[in-house]
């Protein structure tokens, strides 16, 4: 069985894979990093979003073999070593941007990628960037708000406040 080696959350990771092994399967089953979730099989829900070489991608739609030598960051790699949440994670907690938590890892990874590219996105840009991430719990209100807050924007004037 072929081997694959990559760096996951800053640590080297090597494992046996099949040609058909998806990155998400390698992460969840070989590395036991179960924070990356699978919510659909048509590449639309975004629960599996991780960063590969600095880009946000759907771990369910990329083969592990394609990630040979890549730098992969998952939700488990976002907080500080002592467990302190990063600013996106903290904003999600502060603004109740999650309920059941299942879509949350993908949302956080996507939001972090957006803010990396566009540190001060508008509401419209945030909503547009979340096209590939489905949440069934929040109606998106607090997710969008959390991302605005993570960008340092004043969210106190948002409807209902």
């Amino acid at each position, binding site marked *: 069985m072929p081997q694959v080696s990559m760096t996951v959350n800053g640590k080297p990771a090597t494992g046996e894979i099949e040609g058909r092994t998806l990155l998400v399967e390698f992460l969840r089953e070989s590395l036991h990093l179960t924070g990356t979730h699978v919510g659909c099989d048509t590449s639309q829900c*975004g629960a599996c979003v991780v960063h590969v070489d600095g880009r946000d991608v*759907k771990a369910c739609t990329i083969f592990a073999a394609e990630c040979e030598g890549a730098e992969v960051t998952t939700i488990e790699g976002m907080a500080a070593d002592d467990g302190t949440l990063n600013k996106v994670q903290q904003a999600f907690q502060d603004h109740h941007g999650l309920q059941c938590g299942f879509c949350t890892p993908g949302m956080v990874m996507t939001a972090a990628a957006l803010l990396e590219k566009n540190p001060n996105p508008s509401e419209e840009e945030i909503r547009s960037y979340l*096209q590939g991430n489905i949440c069934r719990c929040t109606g998106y209100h607090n997710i969008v708000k959390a991302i605005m807050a993570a960008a340092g924007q004043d969210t106190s004037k948002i409807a209902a406040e």
Partner: protein
Amino acid sequence: MYAFDFERPKTLADAVKAMTDEDAVALSGGQTLIPSLKQRLAMPSKLVSLTGIDEIKGICVDDDGRVCIGAATIHADVAAQEYYPALAALASNVGDPAVRNRGTIGGSLANNDPSACYPAAALGSGAVIRTDKREIAADDYFTGMFETALEEGEIITEIKFPVPETAAYMKFEQPASRFALVGVFVAKYADGVRVAVTGASNEGVFRWSEAEAALGSDFSAGALDGLKLDGSNMISDVHGSGDYRAHIAKVMTKRAVEKAG
């Protein structure tokens, strides 16, 4: 997924060789292929990944002023180029951000999904599709829904886009997939106007010749007023009838003309 061998060549030559295996399938960004493999809709013996081949990536302008895009260039990079703004705008709205970071222009054109955006740009720009074997004019390339002029094992290497005086793409999204329910690419060249419609037809992407003629003499939305597409050969599904798609195609054409200015 069925089991298959996986190969990730570094050169085009190696990829071409790998593709000679029976039932070998080329894998580019995989954003459509991988979901269909999950549904077991395909049973390749081998996947030949094109993502490690640097020679078919990247964007440049050739001596004729054409924008040349390597087939394995991801949508995000096409969206970021500034040589052909209408094409960049189209690419920036394909799929979603994560899809745009994996999916490639070559992969999209090879698949020729009837609702994909790139076929409209290629046909609407009169692009040339270069493969490991030959060059194919867009007018000869798209041969029907999921059908192209590509032969078994043939690999797209580059797409050459003549840059128009002005152009625009308008996409009316299917609400679930976010593919084009109807998408229209309008491009005005010195020698005429091209209008390509995706998402609408059972035959895949097509040129709307009546609109091209009308816009050729008067490049304004009003020039389209008397025209009507026939809905009877359009896709009809839960998201809209053929007549609806025909109507939307006209509305999107007008809006594309207005946007192109």
